[in-house]
């Protein structure tokens, strides 16, 4: 049609609106539609005044009526002009892709609505993370819609067009090459072979280029140690599911280290209570208190600087009981110099003997695993110990850790900075990295950067390095990027954009490609897309030797998001002992030891501006919006410190001031500080949240990583309020001690006990009866079961729920007031002594009680029961008396004390961009309204409608709630309790099942599976 051109850019209300249909014109002219007033013409009425009067009356009535009912315009309806084949408005689409949140590069499945991403979940087809994704990954969707993303390329903080950027920089680069000046590219850890290729091409084009790679979170010591033992940097991943005994050396391998999603999955395979229970036994020897430590059956407090001695003395002990390898004489003498005795005092004989026995008994079926924050020596020792025990068959050589670009050494950086200082570096490119923030202070990078002619920062959002750069070039968010990843041999991940760049941004590879092409005019938005396909065809496709053509294979791999490459399993090499002589017995360190660990939820600071992640409570301390120096109660007493006091931690000649948090279970000489906090140049959310402990690391610690010995602390006056989501009660306060046990909130047993008497949990249970006859639910009845054996308190469920259900960010002050809005929280209880506490975790959410106490007290019926057993909230009926919350024994209801989107950080998240992250299927609650977990009713309804369309029943496990989908260990099960074949129904009748506060007889529909501890005794404590 002639005005088809118009339709493309002009918005029109309806098809008729396009062609000027006379009816439409008419309708536009007379105000009332037919029938309302057409037969009314006052002048034509007969002279009888009464009728005239009546007519006028009715007319005025009609007008008033219309006036009172004219609802305001709710915005026009805008359909697709031409609907894309795969998109059906109102239904979701899934795109397989790869996460760039950290170097693990997990496979993700992005849920989009009408071409807009609204949720990120794991890609079930991905062999490493098998459909799960961590807390950071879940919440990272908010980064796409962060109001403070860089939107335009900047030159000295002034807007500039991409075209000019490319022109100028290409000139600069060429001149640098001519002058033979260095072009330095600083990148984070590289996971994409294709990006590597781009670098290679770049160095071809501009020969003076040097590439530097560094990230604070890395495996360098592990892989160096592996190299010294087995002559390869590529260390294998571990088959945790085959280990009967696991000894974790200061390693948080379950929740926050290495390939933890995979580890969690494999580990909890051996914590299955359905069927036969062959539990593994987890020993954790650590100085800090880690989430893995909370999972431990036995926790051993060893300060990280003693770990080396500890492991070596274990080697000594166990090698006495026989060894799998021949020791060289040097090794023998070396090893024998370590004695276990001084540890048996500290740790206690019993525990140590258990450990040694277990390791000895299950040779070849156990694994010792050191944390990646530990020094190379410990890793060497651990490798040796594993060899002694003959655990090498637990190494999984099918999935070796791939090193695409090795970490630059200290020497590299020294050289770089020298040449920067004496002006030999012309161009400095921060390739999505932020060295100013994380390079050790005494490299003096920050000061020497001024000597570089052109500094270019490629970044998604402002960071410390940007502020010192001439060019700041905005990058695509990961959801707008093409890419690939190759972090474990055999697994090749693909990344595809799910939305075209919202702002005037480009992805970093395509920027380089333009510069490589040598002319700004050669830019095309899909240049990296093409490059990627090309590279895929050359490298991967050839390996696959499939029948169909390259294009087809590419498309289908893109569809799956991952390609599994067959590769032959390497054989385990014999360990070289050549390095042994270089080792020596680590000397006792007099002072305290600072252990810097990665923050649980904001990574190395990359996620610092993500409100959702800042507000997820720390798994152990439940602190939000801050980091702190964790001290053991004893040390705190010694320096007479309490929570919120500020201390000055000083290592050699660097100091930081940081608030104290007294943490039971720490070793008395360890100070545990998490890094990633203390960003200075970043959005309003993350700015000045916490302290940056990386300032403590000097370049001497570049190798020994995050263990800083001989630290000293002194109290300085002033306090800093740390806010937690859970009140803290000192463990020895008899007034409130062990309530979770006394009140049967947490019920636990040991494996032995359970095997002796499977019904031990229900020994003293008496019949509960109600005076009214129960309401019966025919048809579906939704219920959930949570297996406490598997919960590692990783909080992926919390993040997933936040994203799915439009949970607002409330900010530090409101959390401090106890007004956080999370629908699901993870309660953490300590029992035992402050020295070695026993932790119990419990995800707590609305229990959807059959006899819900909240319902009885609501005066307006705003909360009531649905026919399928849901305890539902009618937001629009709620007047907000808060009575329901008062009467909820689980205190899982959340109240909108403010309109938090409007209240948080002056309306930071109250804007059209961030509004896009909200799930269109879920109401955005206004202030003054009570809310709570709905069992993801929108998902239930979705499934139900499909089932109805297809004229079938809902199948038993078809509905999947957000938390369940996210839970990396499948601790959460959801389904129809009335359907005997559903997993929930099975678990509800399990011997270990119990309800929290059962005696109230409110009949909760969330059942918990009691935790079994795999200790040697029958009583757990």
């Amino acid at each position, binding site marked *: 049609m002639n005005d088809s051109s118009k339709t493309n850019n002009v918005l029109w209300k309806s098809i008729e609106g396009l062609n000027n249909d006379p009816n439409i014109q008419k309708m536009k002219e007379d105000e009332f539609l037919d029938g309302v007033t057409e037969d009314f013409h006052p002048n034509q009425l007969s002279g009888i005044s009464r009728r005239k009067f009546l007519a006028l009356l009715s007319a005025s009535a009609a007008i008033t009526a219309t006036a009172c009912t004219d609802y305001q315009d709710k915005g026009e309806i805008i359909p697709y002009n031409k609907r894309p084949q795969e998109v059906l408005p109102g239904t979701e689409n899934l795109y397989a892709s790869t996460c760039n949140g950290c170097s693990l590069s997990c496979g993700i499945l992005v849920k989009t609505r009408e071409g807009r991403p609204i949720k990120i979940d794991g890609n079930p087809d991905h062999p490493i993370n098998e459909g799960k994704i961590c807390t950071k990954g879940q919440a990272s969707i908010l980064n796409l819609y962060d109001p403070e993303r860089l939107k335009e390329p900047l030159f000295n903080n002034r807007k500039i067009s991409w075209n000019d950027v490319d022109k100028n920089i290409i000139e600069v680069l060429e001149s640098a090459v001519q002058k033979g000046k260095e072009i330095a590219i600083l990148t984070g850890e590289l996971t994409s072979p294709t990006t590597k290729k781009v670098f290679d091409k770049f160095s071809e084009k501009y020969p003076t280029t040097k590439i530097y790679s560094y990230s604070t979170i890395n495996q360098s010591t592990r892989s160096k140690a592996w190299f010294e033992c087995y002559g390869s940097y590529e260390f294998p991943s571990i088959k945790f599911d085959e280990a009967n005994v696991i000894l974790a050396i200061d390693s948080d391998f379950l929740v926050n280290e290495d390939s933890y999603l995979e580890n969690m999955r494999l580990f909890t395979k051996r914590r299955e209570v359905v069927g036969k229970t062959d539990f593994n036994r987890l020993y954790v020897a650590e100085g800090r208190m880690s989430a893995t430590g909370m999972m431990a059956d036995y926790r051993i407090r060893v300060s990280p600087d003693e770990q080396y001695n500890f492991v070596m003395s274990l080697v000594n002990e166990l090698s006495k009981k026989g060894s799998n390898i021949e020791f060289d004489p040097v090794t023998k003498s070396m090893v024998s110099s370590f004695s276990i005795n001084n540890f048996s005092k500290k740790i206690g004989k019993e525990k140590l003997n258990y450990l040694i026995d277990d390791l000895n008994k299950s040779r070849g079926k156990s694994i010792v695993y050191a944390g990646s924050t530990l020094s190379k020596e410990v890793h060497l020792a651990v490798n040796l110990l594993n060899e002694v025990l003959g655990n090498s068959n637990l190494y999984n050589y099918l999935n070796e850790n791939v090193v695409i670009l090795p970490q630059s050494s200290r020497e590299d950086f020294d050289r770089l900075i020298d040449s920067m200082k004496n002006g030999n570096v012309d161009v400095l490119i921060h390739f999505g990295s932020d060295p100013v923030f994380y390079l050790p202070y005494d490299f003096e990078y920050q000061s020497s950067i001024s000597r570089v002619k052109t500094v270019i920062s490629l970044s998604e959002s402002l960071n410390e390095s940007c502020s010192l750069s001439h060019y700041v070039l905005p990058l695509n968010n990961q959801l707008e990027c093409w890419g690939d990843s190759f972090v474990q041999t055999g697994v090749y991940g693909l990344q595809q954009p799910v939305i075209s760049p919202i702002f005037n941004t480009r992805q970093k590879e395509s920027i380089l490609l333009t510069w490589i092409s040598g002319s700004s005019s050669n830019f095309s938005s899909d240049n990296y897309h093409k490059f990627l396909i090309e590279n895929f065809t050359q490298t991967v496709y050839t390996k696959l030797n499939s029948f169909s053509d390259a294009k087809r294979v590419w498309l289908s791999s893109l569809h799956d998001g991952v390609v599994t490459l067959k590769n032959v399993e390497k054989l385990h090499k014999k360990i070289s002992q050549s390095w042994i002589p270089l080792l020596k017995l680590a000397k006792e360190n007099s002072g305290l030891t600072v252990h810097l660990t990665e923050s649980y939820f904001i990574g190395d600071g990359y996620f610092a501006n993500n409100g959702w992640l800042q507000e997820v409570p720390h798994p152990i301390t439940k602190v939000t919006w801050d980091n702190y120096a964790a001290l053991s109660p004893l040390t705190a007493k010694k320096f007479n410190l309490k929570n919120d006091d500020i201390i000055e931690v000083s290592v050699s000649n660097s100091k930081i001031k940081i608030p104290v948090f007294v943490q039971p279970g720490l070793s008395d000489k360890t100070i545990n500080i998490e890094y990633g906090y203390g960003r200075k140049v970043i959005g309003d959310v993350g700015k000045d949240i916490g302290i940056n402990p990386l300032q403590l690391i000097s370049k001497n610690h570049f190798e020994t990583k995050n263990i800083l010995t001989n630290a000293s602390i002194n109290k300085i006056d002033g306090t800093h309020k740390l806010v937690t989501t859970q009140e803290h009660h000192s463990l020895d306060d008899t007034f409130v001690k062990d309530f979770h046990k006394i009140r049967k909130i947490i019920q636990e047993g040991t494996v032995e006990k359970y095997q002796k008497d499977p019904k031990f949990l229900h020994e003293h249970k008496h019949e509960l009866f109600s005076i009214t006859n129960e309401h019966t639910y025919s048809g579906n009845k939704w219920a959930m079961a949570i297996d406490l054996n598997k919960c590692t308190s990783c909080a992926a469920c919390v993040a997933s729920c936040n994203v799915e259900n439009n949970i607002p960010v409330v900010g530090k002050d409101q959390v401090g007031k*106890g*007004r956080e809005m999370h629908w699901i929280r993870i309660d953490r209880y300590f029992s035992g002594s402050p020295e070695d506490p026993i932790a119990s975790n419990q995800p707590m959410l609305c229990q959807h009680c059959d006899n819900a106490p909240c319902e009885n007290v609501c005066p307006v*019926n705003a909360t009531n029961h649905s026919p399928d057993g849901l305890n539902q909230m009618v937001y629009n009926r709620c007047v*907000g008396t808060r009575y329901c919350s008062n009467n909820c024994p*689980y*205190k899982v209801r959340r109240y909108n*004390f403010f309109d938090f989107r409007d209240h948080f950080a002056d309306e930071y998240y109250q804007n059209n961009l961030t509004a896009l992250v909200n799930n269109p299927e879920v109401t955005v609650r206004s202030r003054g309204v009570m809310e709570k977990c709905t069992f993801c009713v929108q998902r239930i309804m979705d499934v139900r409608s499909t089932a109805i369309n297809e004229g079938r029943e809902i199948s038993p496990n078809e509905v999947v709630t957000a938390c369940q989908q996210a839970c990396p260990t499948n601790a959460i099960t959801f389904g129809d309790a009335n359907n005997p074949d559903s997993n929930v129904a099975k678990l509800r009748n399990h011997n270990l099942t119990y309800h929290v506060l059962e005696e109230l007889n409110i009949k909760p529909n969330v059942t918990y599976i009691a935790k079994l501890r795999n200790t040697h005794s029958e009583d757990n404590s």
Partner: protein
Amino acid sequence: MSFVDYTKEIQVVEGKQPLRTIDDIISKPLETKPDKKFYIAISVTLTMLMFGVIGLGLTFWYGIGMWGNNNPVGWAYDIVNFVFWVGIGHAGTLISAILYLFRQKWRTGIARFAEGMTIFAVMTAGLFPLIHVGRPWLDGYLFPYPNQHSLWVNFTSPLLWDVFAVSTYLTVSLIFWYVGLIPDFASLRERTANKFKKITYSIFSLGWRFSNRHWQHYEMVYLILAGFATPLVLSVHTIVSFDFAVSILPGWHTTIFPPYFVAGAVFSGFAMVQNVLIFVRRIFNYEHIITLNTLEKMNKIMLVTGSMVGYAYAMEFFIAWYSGVQAEQFTFFNRALGPYAWAYWIMVTCNVVSPQLFWFKKIRRSIPIMFVVAVFVNVGMWFERFVIVVTSLSRDYLPSSWAYYTPTLVDAMILIGSFGFFFTWILLFTKALPVVSIAEVKAVVDGAQPSHKDH
């Protein structure tokens, strides 16, 4: 202190007052212009009221978050104030209804005033349920009216019972009050010369004409109303106590609450009435009508109810221990020893200890001391509600969700405002209406009744 012989009934109105002087004394405030004292007083109360208005303004504009309430402490000052004021509102009806049934003549002097206070107190209390909700503009939802959602209210919710109880109480008290006022309006009508006043009084007196054929029915109605008001006044605080007793929260879920709350209400009510009356009788020279004996009798009642309350506190502890429910036991230990122990001990000293002073006659009959004690009682009763509401909530079943509640400035402003609201009404009342029932007082002046010599 003159010697008092408790064996024979003391006359209610001291000295043989001629009826006309009674007229004069009582209607004096209505016929004279308000003096300086009055203006000072009212400006004070109005400033207090202003605080409240500002506090409420902030709350409506930003949300309940302006208060200290949090999760788990969903209720705090809002409901504490509500219960406190409802409590105050109990003395009036008790005096005018229950004492009337018991034929306590001494009530006549204070009945009218006490009723007035009842009404104002209930008005003040009634504000809080309306403002404590998150979306006050939807308060209409609390009433069962047919609507386009065809949704109704939930009749099993104690809050709804409150709605009915409080509104009924207010209405019935108003009626009771007005019925009592009709004859007084009539006699004022006959006294005044001012035309405007005459019209107003005529309208309100409905043309009452002291006919004995009317007096007969009138007394009957008064009896019936008293009969209704008596169970009503007991029911209101019972139902308010249901707000807590019906829930499952340890520390709230207690069968002793209804009697305990009623006793407490009467206790605080009398204290407040006594406080205010001490001023009134001084300012308006009603010493002869509101006699020291009357005040003493009130003090006795305070002593009784105070002891009842004390008993209830003790009994709560006993039952908690006896129940053997850990959560229950902890709640009460926590009250006495936990983070809110200070509030608990303030409560105990003020409510249990201080009224015991009334065992001594000297103290009973000394105005300054009784005044101070009564003030203590009011403070104590406010803290009783604070202890019940806040401490129970702040530490309930799951230790993981425990939290400490700290009030904010806005909370305080609204509390002050509620006092301002109440006393403003009181002041206006003293200038607008006879604060003592003319007809009733006349009826009890000695020599006012026929000395049936020939019967």
